[in-house]
């Protein structure tokens, strides 16, 4: 297999006494849809927060394109082409879709007006409408506040924002949780199309059939570390659930099942 586009090695993150990540590994290749699954509290969100620059890890390394990177914030990650669609969508409800799409990266007018910070609304509107159209979304009124859109449309705005600016990795945190059947199919379709552009798509989901249908590979987290990396095509739901709950542990048999964190780290180093 080729060099991974994004790789995490032995990431550790503690919040007070809680050890959210205990030496977690992760890999995603260009053009690949990777599902990140795990039970509640397995460390999925923390891992995504670390990989998208929201949270700084206590230990471990992150490699992007084979180079060691250290994000000092989400903007750092964004600058390197790593975008995240948060579960709460992270939209400014009172602003319209184009403004949300360009929030923090507004296009300014040319010349003096631009130097005064005047926005180029026409271009932003046009580009936004095009970005939405690419996802098969037509907004009746692009200048309507996001709050007036349906759940699916809001989702699309958040996804479109990530897609428009990501050129390496997109994290999608439970992108279909709040959606109806049709919208869900559309988002999953989008996920595939984005991956075809050579972007690594990381999908966090609780929906096992969905994971198996859309992902190329599944990485399973349990108790703060990766316990399995499976090819979706060769995997059944039972195997996934087994890996998540600990009855099946392919990668590191019995590593984190009962052993304390010290034991686990000891094994990690020995490996």
């Amino acid at each position: 297999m080729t060099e991974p586009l994004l790789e995490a090695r032995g990431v550790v993150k503690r919040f007070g006494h809680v050890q959210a990540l205990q030496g977690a590994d992760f890999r995603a290749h260009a053009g690949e849809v990777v599902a990140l699954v795990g039970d509640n509290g397995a460390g999925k969100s923390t891992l995504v927060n670390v990989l998208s620059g929201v949270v700084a890890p206590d230990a471990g390394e992150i490699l992007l394109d084979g180079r060691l990177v250290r994000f000092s914030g989400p903007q750092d990650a964004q600058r390197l082409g790593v975008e995240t669609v948060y579960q709460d969508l992270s939209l400014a409800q009172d602003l319209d879709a184009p403004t949300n799409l360009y929030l923090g990266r507004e296009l300014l007018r040319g010349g003096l007006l631009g130097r005064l910070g005047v926005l180029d609304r026409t271009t932003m509107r046009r580009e936004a409408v095009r970005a939405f159209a690419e996802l098969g979304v037509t907004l009746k009124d692009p200048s309507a506040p996001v709050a007036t859109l349906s759940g699916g449309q809001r989702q699309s705005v958040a996804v479109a924002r990530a897609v428009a600016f990501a050129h390496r990795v997109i994290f999608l945190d439970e992108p279909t949780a709040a959606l109806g059947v049709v919208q869900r199919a559309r988002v999953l379709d989008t996920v595939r199309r984005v991956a075809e552009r050579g972007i690594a798509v990381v999908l966090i989901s609780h929906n096992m059939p969905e994971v198996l249908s859309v992902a190329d590979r599944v990485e399973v987290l349990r108790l703060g570390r990766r316990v399995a990396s499976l090819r979706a095509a060769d995997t059944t739901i039972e195997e996934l659930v087994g890996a998540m709950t600990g009855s099946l542990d392919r990668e590191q048999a019995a590593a984190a099942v009962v052993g304390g964190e010290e034991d686990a780290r000891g094994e990690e180093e020995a490996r």
Partner: protein
Amino acid sequence: MTTTGATDREPDDRPPDSLAGPTSVSRDASQGAASTAAPAPGAGRPAAPAAPATVPAPTAAARPLLLRAASVSEVWTFLILAGLVVFFTLAAPRTFFTTYDLTQIAVNAAIYLVLGVGMTFVVITAGIDLSIGSVLVLAAVAAGEYNIHHGGADAGWWTVAVCALIALGVGAAWGALQGLVVATGKVPPLIVTLGGLGAALGIAELATGGQDPADAAAAHLQNSLGYGKLLGIPWLVILAAVVTLAFGLLLGTTRFGTHTFAIGSNPAASRRAGVAVGRHLVKVYALMGLLAGLGAVMWLASYGTTSIAGHSTDNLRVITAVVLGGTSLFGGRGSVLGTVIGVFIPAVLTTGLIVIGVQQYWQDVAVGVVLVAAVHLDQMRRRTRERT
């Protein structure tokens, strides 16, 4: 002591003059003044195009368009304002719609407009600034003290300019300080600026012994900005209009404005999107302070005294105007145009009630009721929106 502020404002004692004054002016002139003077405070934007819309309001054909437009919150408040103007004009055709009254309304509103413009930004970030009256006093005292020691009433232009800069600087610095505390996110803006209200006033009283110093304003300042006019429009009104227009454009067309809305709408999302939320909040509160400093200059020019005890209700008046204008106390929504309307509703009410011979204190009652209704409406809108 708050009453001193009210009597300072002097619209109350003027109606007799206004009865005498405008009758000597011809009817045509007063009509002409009505059409030119009305848009002046709003810098020409709101009044002219929207005014005709109020006329066909009762007809059935106009209703769909009105309903569609009603989603914009300013339209409602504008209709209220237009209704008031129409009512008072019909009730007192000779006296209400005259150059004198319009000018007086605009002059009285000018300082509150400048403060209201800054408050609009603050409230859109889901913040509030209770300290503006005290900051105005502090800035006025700082400028006044400099003036006293550099020529007093006979001070030259150079002193006037330095005084203005001192007032602006003190206001902006105080605002920035409050913004810094707000930006840490540890203390809510309500408390930060409540503390600022007390502290700023206290410092002003310490500096002056609690007495308004004599010769705080130079004659040059009063004769120019205070009483001067350009083509019949007072400089105070022109200054307020320019500030309003500039800040309206800042809010409506620039990245700064967009970030203001975004922070009020969803601070966490703004931060994730790369908006420097803390730094932006400092700027917004500093702007508010700057405009309070400008208000101090306008006050000194207009009344020639620091009126230490006369600004304790400025904050409530200004917040009322901003909220009446459709800016949401919960942040994320609002406009400078709405604030312009919101400032003029109480101003028109006061003058109008005097003109038709009703006790002006009814104005406080009416504004209070409308304010509560406006916030209730805002809440309802928010709730129905979230249900969809």
